[in-house]
């Protein structure tokens, strides 16, 4: 892997980030409704129009869109993402406490997905058309179809209420890792199980494809042990599509945190974003999207790096 490859990949980020932020800036303002409606609530009926106009102007929302955009970009380049329209807190201050819990949830979900999905899929492939294969694939289809909201409530009900072995809600004591992990178990299972099912299907088909390749037959013909053929030759080659799915799925997992954070009452960026969209809290929406876009870009970058490490052909391309 050479430096030019990394720089090339890195330069793609700039237009991607700019595009995402610009698009969100415009779309959220074109959506019907205004933050002022939310700020005044049903008192808007009884608030004189000149008072409403004054409040709109005080946020600069009476300015033309391009003026608002220019001001936003100018401030953002200086690291100032503005203030929440709902409570005047700086956007960075609103988002910062939620970044860690969201990342923890997404990676814990990924861990659950990889730890369950990959071995299950490989096992199903190696025991094709047996009870193991049918069992794994049936579960995979069922889990893929289960809405995460439903699964979350079910987990809360079973492990928090009926057999109360794990906390029903909350994020644990911040900074106390064992406590945070304890509160992470149910949400991680809820968010990771769909990905586990997806990975199981992907691992199965990828392994089956590789196992039918000539080099696997050659390895067997050389008299290598079955375990060596599978682990050293087949799985390393089957890993490429699996890594692709993991990379893509991490973006899904970050997006999926919204539902999980809501049901399990976890702090996090997903719920913050949804609330901000509902309240038309423009600066917070823009800040969240910026963080999500950055996160997805970093994941894509790492996936590319993983390709290059796994497959020398990518490096020389």
């Amino acid at each position: 892997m050479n430096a030019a490859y990394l720089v090339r990949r890195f330069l793609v980020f700039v237009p991607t980030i700019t595009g995402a932020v610009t698009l969100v800036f415009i779309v959220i303002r074109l959506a019907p409704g205004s933050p002022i409606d939310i700020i005044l609530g049903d008192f808007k009926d009884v608030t004189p129009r000149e008072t409403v106009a004054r409040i709109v102007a005080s946020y600069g929302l009476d300015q033309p869109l391009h003026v608002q955009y220019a001001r936003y970009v100018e401030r953002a380049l200086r690291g100032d993402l503005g203030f929440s329209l709902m409570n005047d807190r700086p956007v960075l201050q609103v988002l910062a406490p939620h970044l860690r819990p969201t990342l923890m949830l997404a990676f814990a979900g990924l861990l659950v997905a990889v730890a369950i999905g990959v071995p299950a899929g490989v096992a199903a492939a190696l025991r094709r058309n047996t009870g193991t294969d049918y069992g794994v694939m049936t579960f995979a289809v069922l889990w893929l179809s289960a809405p995460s909201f439903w699964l979350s409530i079910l987990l809360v009900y079973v492990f928090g209420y009926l057999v109360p072995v794990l906390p029903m809600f909350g994020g644990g004591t911040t900074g106390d890792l064992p406590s945070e992990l304890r509160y992470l178990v149910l949400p991680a299972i809820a968010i990771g199980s769909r990905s586990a099912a997806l990975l199981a299907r992907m691992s199965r088909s990828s392994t089956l494809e590789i196992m039918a390749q000539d080099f696997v037959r050659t390895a067997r013909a050389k008299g290598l042990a079955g375990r060596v053929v599978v682990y050293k030759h087949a799985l390393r080659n089957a890993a490429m599509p699996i890594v692709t799915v993991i990379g893509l799925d991490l973006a899904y997992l970050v997006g999926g945190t919204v539902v999980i954070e809501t049901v399990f009452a976890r702090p996090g960026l997903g719920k913050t974003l949804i609330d901000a969209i509902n309240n038309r809290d423009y600066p917070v929406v823009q800040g969240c999207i910026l963080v999500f876009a950055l996160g997805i870009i970093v994941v894509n970058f790492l996936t590319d790096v993983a390709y290059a490490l796994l497959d020398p052909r990518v490096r020389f391309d």
Partner: protein
Amino acid sequence: MRKFSLVIVALLVAALAFAPAPAPAQAGKTLRMGYTADFVTLDPPRITTMPDYPIAMNIFSGLVRYKQDGLGVEPDLAQRYDVSKDGLVYTFWLRRGVKFHKGFGDFTARDVKYSFERVLDPALRSPYAPQMKLIKSIDIINDYQVRLVLSEPYADFLPAVLAFRPGYIVSQKAVEQFGNQFGSNPIGTGPYMVERYVPRQEIVFAQFGEYFGRFRAGARRMGGKAQIDRVLLRIIPQETVVALALARGELDYAPIRTAAAFKLIRNEASIGHTATPVLGRRSLWGMNGRAPLTDVRLRRALSHAINHKEFVDAVEEGMGTTEGMWSEIPPGVFGHAPDTPQFTFDLAKARALLREAGVGPQTRPLQIVFRDTDRAFAQAIRGYWTRAGANLQLVEVGSAPYEARRVAGDFDYLITGPTRVAPDQFLLPLQSDSVPNFYGQIDNLIAAQRREVDPEKRRAILRQIQTRISSDLPMIPVFRPYYVTAFRKGVTGDVANTFYWLWYWELMDVTQ
């Protein structure tokens, strides 16, 4: 691969096994509350929503406050007050020795003047500024006496302004210190103060040891001492989880807002609850100045088509009532008229009136606009109205587009249900300068009741207004929801009031 999985599982199990139990509660009694949303701001003149207001009730005090059992007011930071006969001059004698939280000093008449003038500051963006503008002058007679002179009489001045959110007294020193972050660092004179705040997770409130007095009836019964030392408010967005946590004993106390959670807690033996009808009603506001809703026969037909009792039982799981819903001003608010016209369920009459009005499946569909939280409500209404012969279209929108459509009058019917505290506030949306095409036919009567300081004369005008509104049906009432508060057995002192969810923690006790 198998070994790797086993290692992961072993690590997870070890983490769980060695994870310490949650930190032990601090000394004293703690009330563990649950609510579905974090607060937006605890700066009183900017509060417009739940749970900001009931929290603020425990942090701040006003010159006067609502009584425990209704909407009447009684002195709070004032020891007594006097109102001139023309309703223009209010004089307050203030309580001495009152302290602000966290060492922010003594309360005096200067704080009253500062707090009220602050509401008018354009930088604060308070929706209550127009009400506060009624005060022509604030005269400090001495440190403990203050006089307010109004520009015109306002019969609801005490309950609608001074006892309400804009009337809470803030610490000038704290406002200047915290600036626009005062909403997260509120300093008042109330019985509890914010001890710790973790956004979107929890707020911890500690009892204020120097609180000036606990003279509500309940507090006297407890020997003048608040029993709850700390309140832990957990933010749990999913109300079903709140109900399950109450049932498991992980929470002590929670307001309940959805029918699904109400059903859960009602059937749980370990949970008690109070249910009181709100000061308001859920109804369908119509665009009555636009065809076909200009025809009163159509509006009455649509009211006759709704089986209100069945609606409350089936859609709302019994979380409401139809009692007192036919008058615009609800029972408990000054001027409520109990005997206004009622257009109760009568399907045959509904069909006949629709035919008379020339409305049927062939006419333009009536558009019902509603928020996603009212989906079941809207679907039930579609069922009733379609059965009677009307043609309908349901439009589900998010909060912001809903508000935009409401203000612009972009709907045929809108599902809504604001709650208010003073008669005048119920009537404001019906003025012609409010929502366009909504009503606007009784502006003179609304203005007359506002100016009238003689209670009996005002009551007569309000009666006339309500009879007219009930007869014209600009909004079709459906039911009055309940404020529901659920609590674990062992929690006492919950105040059930039709005015609002009143979390008077100083009156409560909990067995742990």
